[in-house]
């Protein structure tokens, strides 16, 4: 069985599965994309943001 057929049978044959795939994919993409952009942003602005200098000021009592 060709890969495309397997793919078709797995995701596209039933509409419920298809819609579910779209929703789950959107959710996963949203999280992954956000993580990726945040990672890039934090690398680009290394040492400038509050989370980079925070440990100098928090009290040790925690």
């Amino acid at each position, binding site marked *: 069985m060709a890969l495309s057929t397997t793919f078709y049978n797995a995701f596209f044959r039933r509409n419920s599965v298809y819609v579910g795939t779209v929703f789950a994919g959107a959710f996963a993409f949203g999280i992954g*994309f*956000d993580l990726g*952009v*945040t990672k*890039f*942003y934090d690398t*680009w*602005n290394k040492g*400038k*943001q*509050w989370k*980079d*200098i*925070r440990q*100098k*000021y*928090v*009290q040790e009592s925690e």
Partner: protein
Amino acid sequence: MLSRLSAGVLKNAASSGAKKTALGARSSVRYASSNASASTVDAILSSRATLASASLLSVGTIAWYTHLYGTIPFVGEVHASHLSDEGLHPPSYPWSHKGILDTFDHASIRRGYQVYREVCAACHSLNRIAWRNLVGVSHTSDEARVMAEEHEYTDGPNGEGEMFQRPGKLADYMPNPYPNEEAARAGNAGALPPDLSLIVKARHGGADYIFSLLTGYIDPPAGVEIREGMNYNPFFPGGAISMARVLFDGIVEYDDGTPATTSQMAKDVVTFLNWAAEPEHDERKKLGIKAVIIFSTLTALSLYVKRFKWGPIKNRKIIYKPPTDH
């Protein structure tokens, strides 16, 4: 538009003119395609459309120039006022948050808050910023709480209908140095120190202007008279400003050991004020990265889909086959 038109016309005129004389020498047969051109040039040069488009081009160019530079080209201007009345334009400084991907330098915001508190806050209010806004930006919540408690706020009324004093809380806004505008004017020789919450957005030149103003105090040049109690600053429109120079080397002592030079303090306090004017700045730029990525992908996708769908329609060939036998 006119230049393209005239160049093409000239070329046509030259070639067709030559063709015409050659043809005329050989025979007297006149071809409509080769012969009408001499009069075509005349027709184009004297047509109403040419006149209209040339006029439109001139008017459009002048209008564009006027829009761009504010004056009509080649006409001199006479000013009743001197240009210094508009203030010197500030140079463009390389702020740490200048690029489209750059966040504020939060260590600088923290130092800038210290400069604001120890120097500026004597006269300038900052009434759109609450103590809680500093938390997670330049101070921890414990530090912000302690700083808030150092100030007294009027609250109430209590059970007896009396107003009472209490120490500040995180939710309180920064206290004003004067109880009202009249008191502020009376304390500053009639000049009202502006609220600094949105000052970076409220002034032309923004952060560059405020930095230049804070570091730009000089002696007035020859011929400029400054009244008693006023100070000369070339960046301030008019040159005479009521605020005196306040930042001098070493008037603030930073906790992180940064040397407190005038320009360092000015840079820090301007970064702090820029944050106060745009607290959403860092998050906005991050969202901007996301938006640009997503929207450019969607644009590319929709362009591709359009070409994909239109391909067969654009490339089809319609052939008429006449009926063969009847």
